[in-house]
């Protein structure tokens, strides 16, 4: 508990401009997207090692280490809790005394059909428990920005963020400022993956700026600080039971999921809810019981990260499917095909699928693909000292915010005085290239050259609120708003031209690069001349699009609905990986990767490949190396030398294909592909390893150390007996 902060010595250092604490904050001093539980600066107690306590402003960065040292903070120690299951016990210290459910941030339960009673009708059942690691975003550009406050109290900031409009509201509330007097500019950022979906530096920058008006304030987290204070992927413990009938069709599923969210919500409730929605995979299962809890602890903050709860549940479920296939003597592909969801089916949380559902086609295409056809012979051709395995996984990923939070985008298009077009992009481009896709759409529909299109990146003073760059919804939602807006703009210009060219027929006018032409007479009108002739307000078109949502209610729990359950549109995919293991070292080499995807029709195939390839690479890191280690709440992996990211040597060439099946509601038939690929590699790799080693590893990442241990255990003569016993232990 915070007792006192003595800033006097720090303030005496020449060049130290200010040392700010919670006492300098006029607002609520609380931030958060759903539950506002995270202080800008600690005011009552610190809840993890990454909580900021004081903000020091210096003339020159070189002064910072000494200045920080001279801020004396006095604490009263409180009992901590680091284990999520311990945190649920009655006597556990409370992280937030005001939370009605104690340390359980959110608990969710979903029952379909007979729930657990459905297992009585199963002829084969498998059971297993899994533990998956905490993953660090490790975007190359750490959290940063600058801010300046002018004499009139107007605050301007440019930050690396996925959510400029929401940031503005959060900063205003936390610091007690007028939202109208804050401008947030969000240029292309250097990677985000969910870690910049929410406040990082924004409130601190604003606080600093308003305490030295007229001077720009800059903040740039070092890698170690980003690791310490940035949010992670939730470490997860999962218990699964899956049962099938004689013919290999799934009958019943049970899953219990525990996510450790650290001390703050940071979308943890929404992450759990999406995890629950995907916990049964893209399969038909008549009887389902799902239970999930996301729990407060004193560990680092976990929150939004590409995949959003789905990589964890897919990592577990897809291993269950292989376990069941093995038990029933079916091939991993065949069991998936027998259970794959199709349009019109009810998914595992009971929602009838009414939009494009291409999993079956993905599986068919994998089956016909040489990588699948050759997988057995490839595995058998392992050289002495090595083992080979091939592994499969299916993925599905929902798009958008779900039924309650409006998933809306507003496109703004302007015909400039020079007869060019300006596209005001309301959603952040953090490296997905969505802004490029928007220009591609505009160029196509307006029939204009790239040089005559100008892009305005997200800026609360210029562009319109269009939601976050997240939830695989960016191109879908903003793209639809843009298409409608562009059509309106085109129509408006043709109508304006009609009166000037004096033709009676609109369909004889076409928009060409830089001009409008009348087809029968050959008369043309320069867009520049037209622009000068139209009032400024009429040269702007704004169109709002709200994404469709599911009307179904799969649970009476309004909190799960609020957190996004259920969704209407899903993308699908099938992953297949080849691995080679060095028997001496346990080192795993990924030799080949195939991913067939149903993400609707593609607008920009190159950007699609980037998303899938990048997602696979991040997923391979999650599967094989990435483990953000924490001991008693303190980070052990403080930098990139101990937290291992995949390098160019660790990721193979990937074969990435799309079905191109149109999603009728989407822009040119597209649906989201930003997160989908991240969900698959963990299970595919784990399945391939199990095939190669003959033993399954239930903990991730699947490091050389764990693989070696599994190899050694497998090598013992009692191999078969031991395998059975582990299976039984896992069943108990």
């Amino acid at each position, binding site marked *: 508990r915070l007792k006192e902060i003595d800033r006097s010595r720090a303030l005496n250092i020449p060049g130290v401009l200010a040392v700010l604490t919670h006492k300098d904050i006029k607002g609520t001093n609380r931030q958060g997207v759903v539950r506002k539980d995270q202080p800008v600066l600690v005011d009552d107690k610190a809840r993890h090692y990454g909580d900021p306590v004081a903000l020091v402003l210096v003339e020159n960065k070189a002064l910072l280490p000494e200045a920080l040292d001279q801020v004396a903070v006095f604490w009263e120690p409180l009992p901590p809790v680091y284990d999520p299951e311990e945190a649920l016990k009655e006597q556990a210290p409370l992280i937030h005394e005001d939370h009605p459910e104690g340390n359980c941030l959110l608990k969710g339960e979903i029952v379909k059909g007979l729930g657990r009673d459905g297992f009585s009708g199963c002829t084969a059942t498998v059971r297993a428990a899994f533990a998956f690691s905490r993953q660090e*975003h*490790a*975007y*190359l*550009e*750490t959290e940063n920005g600058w801010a300046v406050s002018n004499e009139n109290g107007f605050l301007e900031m440019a930050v690396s963020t996925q959510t400029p409009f929401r940031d503005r509201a959060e900063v205003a509330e936390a610091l007690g400022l007028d939202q109208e007097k804050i401008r947030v500019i969000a240029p*292309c*950022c*250097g*990677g*985000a*993956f969910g870690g910049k979906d929410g406040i990082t530096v924004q409130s601190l920058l604003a606080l600093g700026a308003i305490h030295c008006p007229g001077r720009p304030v800059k903040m740039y987290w*070092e*890698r170690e600080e980003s690791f310490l204070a940035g949010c992670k992927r939730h470490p997860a413990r999962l218990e699964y039971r899956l049962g099938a009938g004689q013919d290999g069709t799934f009958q019943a599923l049970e899953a219990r999921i525990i996510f450790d969210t650290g001390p703050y919500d940071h979308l943890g409730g929404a992450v759990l809810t999406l995890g629950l929605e995907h916990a049964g995979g893209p399969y038909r299962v008549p009887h389902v019981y799902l239970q999930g809890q996301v729990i407060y602890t004193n560990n680092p903050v976990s929150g939004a990260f590409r995949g959003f709860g789905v990589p964890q549940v897919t990592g577990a479920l897809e291993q269950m499917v292989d376990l069941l296939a093995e038990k029933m003597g079916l091939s991993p592909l065949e069991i998936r095909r027998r259970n794959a969801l199709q349009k019109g089916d009810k998914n595992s949380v009971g929602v009838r699928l009414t939009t494009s559902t291409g999993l079956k086609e993905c599986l068919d295409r994998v089956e016909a693909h040489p990588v699948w056809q050759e997988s057995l012979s490839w595995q058998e051709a392992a050289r002495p000292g090595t083992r080979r395995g091939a592994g499969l996984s299916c993925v599905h990923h929902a798009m958008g915010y779900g039924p309650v939070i409006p998933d809306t985008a507003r496109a703004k298009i302007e015909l400039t005085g020079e007869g060019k077009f300006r596209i005001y992009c309301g959603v952040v481009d*953090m*490296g*997905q*290239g969505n802004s490029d896709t928007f220009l591609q759409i505009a160029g196509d529909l307006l029939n204009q050259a790239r040089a005559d299109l100008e892009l305005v990146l997200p800026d609360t003073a210029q562009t319109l609120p269009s939601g976050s760059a997240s939830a695989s919804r960016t191109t879908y939602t903003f793209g639809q708003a843009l298409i409608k807006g562009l059509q309106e703009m085109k129509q408006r210009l043709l109508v304006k031209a009609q009166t000037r060219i004096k033709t009676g027929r609109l369909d004889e006018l076409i928009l060409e690069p830089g001009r409008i032409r009348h087809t029968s007479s050959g008369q043309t009108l320069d867009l520049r001349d037209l622009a000068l002739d139209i009032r400024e307000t009429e040269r702007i078109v704004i169109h709002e699009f709200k994404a469709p949502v599911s009307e179904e209610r799969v649970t009476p729990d309004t909190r799960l609905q609020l957190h996004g359950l259920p969704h209407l549109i899903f993308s699908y995919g099938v992953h297949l990986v080849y691995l080679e293991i060095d028997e001496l070292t346990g080192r795993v080499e990924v030799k080949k990767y195939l991913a067939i995807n149903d993400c609707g029709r593609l607008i920009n195939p*190159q*950007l699609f*490949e*980037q998303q899938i*390839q*990048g*997602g*696979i*690479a*991040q997923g391979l890191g999650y599967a094989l190396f990435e483990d953000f280690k924490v001991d008693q709440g303190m980070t052990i992996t403080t*930098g*990139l*030398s101990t937290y291992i*990211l995949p*390098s*160019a*040597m660790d*990721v193979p*060439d*990937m074969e990435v294909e799309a079905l191109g099946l149109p999603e009728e509601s989407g822009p040119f038939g597209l649906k989201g592909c930003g997160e989908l690929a991240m969900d698959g590699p963990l299970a595919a790799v784990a399945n391939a390893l199990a095939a190669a080693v003959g033993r399954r590893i239930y903990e991730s990442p699947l490091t050389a150390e764990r693989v070696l241990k599994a190899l050694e255990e497998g090598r013992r003569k009692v191999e078969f007996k031991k395998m059975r016993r582990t299976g039984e232990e896992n069943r108990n």
Partner: protein
Amino acid sequence: MKIQFYLNNLPRVVDVAADRRVVDLLREDLGLTGTKEACGSGECGACTILVDGQTRLSCLMLAPQLEGRKITTIEGLADGEGLHPLQEAFVQTGAVQCGFCTPGMILAALDFLKDHPDPVREQVREGLSGNLCRCTGYQKIIDAVILAAEKGGRNR
């Protein structure tokens, strides 16, 4: 202290503190923000520059180490509006996503291609293994370097 060096082919004299890191000198003092810092400890390669044509990590160098050297940063590659063939190849193959690793990646590739004018993919992977990318999965970066090598070969 005063130091002299060539920066992107132009002679420069700067007055800089002896303990100033090269990455700070470039970004903060000289305004060349194309050089990126992503770890500050020599693990990621984002701050790669060329010193006398060889890759060096500017976050691990102090300004005086530049004395008398020829420095190339990403800003020194393009000829006005015309991109360097390697930059062109990165654009063409879609090797850029968030772009933060790109300057370091391109400079590392430039140095690599000098010694390996006709590389196979595995060599490119090894040559660029000191530069981390979190977005692309590397495949299109390898494509770009191979494409640049092929074009370079054709131009010879």
